[in-house]
């Protein structure tokens, strides 16, 4: 139960941060990506601001085997740079640039994003649904090669 309460609170603070930072506004995100236009540096401050507390958290986590509510800490990051990572990141970046929305802000703006936001969420969920078989295909091709 405690874990669910803190999951709710983490989501709540994440959502508040996305709203306050302006990252739910697609013009700000597209403005950051638009290096040939009227460039908007806000996203760099958001990412930088978010990395700071998280870097401290990782240092604390490194000294612990379990989280405060009992679950085991995430494993050390793998260093494997496979085709799935590259292909996936390129596809994600393409969609991110087209609409100016990534998964966090897409969910955070559910209540005020209008029909466009809902349509984006539906398409994103559909994409997430078809991804696992696609990943298997890519893995199979690599195994054969």
């Amino acid at each position, binding site marked *: 139960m405690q874990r*669910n309460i803190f999951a*709710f609170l983490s989501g709540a603070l994440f959502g508040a941060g996305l709203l306050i*930072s302006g990252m739910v*506004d697609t013009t700000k995100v597209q403005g950051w990506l638009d290096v040939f236009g009227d460039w908007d540096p806000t996203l760099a401050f958001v990412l*930088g601001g978010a990395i700071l507390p998280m870097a401290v958290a990782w240092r604390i986590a490194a000294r612990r085997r379990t989280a405060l509510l009992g679950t085991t800490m995430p494993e050390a990051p793998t260093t494997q740079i496979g085709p799935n990572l590259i292909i996936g990141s390129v596809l994600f970046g393409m969609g991110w640039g087209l609409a100016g929305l990534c998964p966090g802000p897409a969910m955070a703006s559910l209540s005020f994003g209008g029909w466009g936001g809902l349509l984006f969420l539906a398409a994103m969920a559909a994409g*997430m649904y078809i991804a696992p078989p696609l990943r298997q295909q890519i893995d199979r091709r690599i195994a054969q090669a």
Partner: protein
Amino acid sequence: MIETAWIWGLIGGLMIGTAAAMFLLLNGRIMGASGILGGLVDGSGRSTGVERVAFIIGLVLVPALLAALMGGAETNITSNPVVIIAAGLLVGVGTRLANGCTSGHGVCGISRLSLRGIVATVFYLLAGGLMMALFRHVFGVI
């Protein structure tokens, strides 16, 4: 407003990072928006389903309340349904293939100097920048 945008960006960013820190140190989870939702969509995260749903409820509810208090919030999302559907599909497939998005690879990955997180971030930033250059400045669609 334009001059203070970076301050709000920094404050909001610190809040996002604190949320991620909380989720890691208390729940032992990496705060990745695409992973939390994707695990529900494809069923791979069924064992932690309630925790995921609780996170998403917070993520939707609090911006809804804050936006209502602030008298609304602007997303300025395009009104072109073809662009929206294409973008949504790309974001959904891409984040699940790459196993992370801006929050997972960007915030949580870079902060632990994960090579995968850094490589992913470089590629989605480049791809996003290229799409802006092409579809705004060459084709004039967005």
